[in-house]
């Protein structure tokens, strides 16, 4: 005879397990999509939410058959959340992608868009110019460029005038920049330049020297003489020439102060950053301007941007593509400028009067600097192991940036690590 107590125990455990499992399954299959609306995820804060929603409203109004449900995820949780959504089989129809786009495309989580592009008659080259194939992987396009702006040089006109130096231009060489930094430095209180410790910054110099982080055949070349020279130059600006604040000096300025904040505080006379720097300076009480990045042996500068992709979970990829095409068309891209969110990837909009003379920018601001830079934006290696590559640099260059040192030695270590990451 079965022991009742034991039977009850077993039944209880079994029931619990079942209910628990059911609960988990429910979590996995939840979410929208049944009502025909497209789901779209983007990262950012309130400004992004407002702008994307406005763009969606715009295309929805003109295309009644398109309905998009926007979901905004804070930037620092974006990758993790989207990853979980996709892994759970509940990926969004449309997702925003950037440097690590190929973490997804290489694992066939994104739909190749070639066919859609062909059948829709979208002329990528005409609409996006040099960034048209930015999100291509192994010959197939996985995302349509949506936002795309080069890094530019922000300079403090007041400080330049006081030092009697000409404003920066695209014709400046690294030597010109270096000379200006020296003249703009007042030891202990003012520095010529905000520094180049961020990959987007010092990679620009490496590519200007003719170097590459990953070569065209996909092999890492992070310790080539060109790259090492650029890294050494960038770091010596702080530790040898003292025309850039060292990390220790930045730490003394306050928590999380970097080039952008120091430029706004007039502590550094030049800073290289993206479009968002303009918004950060809206309240600035000094005169400033922007110019394209200076050059080395050749012109090169990092670009920032993002594209829109369709995940494999999309139930209606045709409609999703239609929506993306509309979102990157002139009218919807215009909202990016009107709201001062970012540089639109659509060339026509980038060259329009609305972009070159926006209401919110100081009247004489050279917005053309973005268009001018577009031609020499460097092709950063968007490898599937992008995050690991970033960590390889962080892992080995931490002390180098903080205390100075020999670039070649550190890059040799980076190179070894990259070789084991990229197989």
């Amino acid at each position: 005879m079965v022991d009742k107590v034991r039977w009850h125990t077993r039944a209880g455990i079994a029931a619990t397990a079942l209910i628990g499992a059911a609960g988990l399954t429910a979590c996995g299959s939840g979410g929208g999509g049944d009502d025909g609306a497209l789901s779209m995820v983007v990262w950012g804060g309130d400004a992004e939410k407002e702008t994307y929603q406005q763009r969606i409203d715009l295309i929805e109004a003109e295309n009644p058959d398109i309905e998009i449900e926007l979901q905004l995820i804070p930037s620092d949780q974006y990758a993790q959340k989207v990853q979980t959504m996709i892994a759970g089989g509940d990926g969004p129809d449309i997702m925003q992608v950037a440097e690590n786009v190929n973490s997804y495309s290489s694992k066939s989580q994104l739909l190749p868009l070639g066919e859609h592009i062909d059948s829709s008659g979208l002329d990528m080259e005409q609409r996006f110019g040099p960034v048209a194939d930015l999100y291509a992987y192994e010959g197939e396009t996985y995302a349509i460029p949506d936002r795309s702006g080069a890094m530019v040089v922000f300079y403090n006109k007041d400080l330049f005038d006081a030092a009697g130096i000409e404003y920066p231009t695209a014709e400046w060489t690294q030597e010109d920049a270096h000379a200006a930094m020296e003249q703009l430095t007042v030891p202990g209180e003012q520095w010529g330049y905000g520094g180049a410790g961020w990959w987007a910054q010092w990679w620009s110099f490496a590519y200007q020297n003719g170097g590459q982080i990953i070569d065209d055949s996909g092999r890492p070349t992070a310790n080539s003489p060109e790259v090492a020279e650029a890294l050494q130059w960038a770091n010596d600006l702080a530790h040898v020439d003292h025309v850039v604040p060292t990390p220790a000096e930045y730490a003394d300025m306050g928590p999380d102060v970097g080039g952008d904040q120091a430029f706004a505080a007039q502590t550094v006379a030049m800073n290289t950053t993206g479009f968002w720097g303009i918004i950060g300076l809206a309240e600035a009480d000094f005169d400033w301007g922007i110019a394209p990045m200076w050059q080395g042996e050749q012109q090169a500068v990092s670009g920032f941007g993002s594209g829109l992709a369709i995940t494999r979970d999309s139930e209606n990829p045709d409609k999703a593509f239609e929506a993306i095409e509309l979102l990157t068309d002139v009218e919807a891209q215009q909202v990016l400028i009107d709201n001062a969110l970012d540089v639109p990837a659509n060339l026509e909009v980038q060259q329009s009067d609305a972009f070159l003379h926006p209401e919110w920018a100081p009247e004489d601001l050279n917005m053309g600097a973005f268009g001018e830079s577009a031609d020499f934006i460097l092709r950063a290696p968007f490898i599937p192991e992008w995050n690991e590559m970033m960590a390889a640099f962080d892992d080995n260059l931490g002390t180098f940036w903080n205390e100075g040192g020999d670039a070649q030695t550190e890059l040799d270590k980076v190179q070894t690590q990259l070789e084991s990451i990229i197989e």
Partner: protein
Amino acid sequence: MTTTVDEAPGAARPARRAGRRRTKMSPRRRKEALYFWLFISPWLIGFVGFLLGPMIASVYISLTEWDSFTPPEWVGLENYAKALTEDPVFWKALWNTFYFAAISVPLGLVIGVWLANLLNKQVKGRKLFRTFIYLPTLVPLVATAMVFKMVLAPSGPLNDLLGWVGIDGPEWLLSATWIKPALIILSVWGAGGATVLLLSAMNGIPRELYEAAEIDGASPWRQFWAVTFPQITPVIFFNLIMGLIGAFQIFSQVYILAPGGNVGGPDNASQMMVTLLFQEAFSFYHFGYASAVAWLLFIVILVFTLIAFRTARKWVFYETEVR
């Protein structure tokens, strides 16, 4: 009505079962059993669905290579072998975690006991001091970390203070040598949490013990070691176990104090076990490897907790215990 008050009704009782097998349950007991399962079910479902299930799944995942998107690929013990023999970052993270736990836990306990002992004295404004000591525990970690970034700046207040006594302060968060001590300082900042528990334990010590000790001519120092300390050892032990588990799982502090957003930096000097496994899983898409690291961490914590429990018999004193 005296049957089962502090005993889970319906729960199998080995002693009774060993003697005779019950063939029939009274309606009352059946009802009790039903209620038992009903009331325990929210916890059980949560435990099975959100803890036990994922734990079992992670054993399997740790034996595969899985990027969370494509089907997992069976690799056997390769992930464990990689962590233990190939990956220098794993050993660095393990060492960093040991370093942090080995210093922050005992230091936190010593400071906790010391503060509790001070706050137990009959001084003016005692309640106020008690509040102040506990206050840091209530401040959100992000806010604390922001303040610490300022305090630990190379020319910040702490280094100014050290300068007065002739010490040339380090660059703390920017230095591979000093970022771990900086994390320990941040953890000790929250010692007030332990203090409150210790304080309540001290309050529970019978006055007679001190009176007896005083009559015997014991000095305050002797009274502390002979009366106070043995009486609070259970709470110290509790704090030790909790502290060990917490220290081995240190995560948020590393993220928030990370110089320039370089988590684990500079040069992995502050890379801990949990930050490493988080990075491997959610940034590098190596879920198999991350799960293996998680299980290795589980074993480490288990070993240390067992050691703590084993040695506890020697120094933890329970009043009700008969020796």
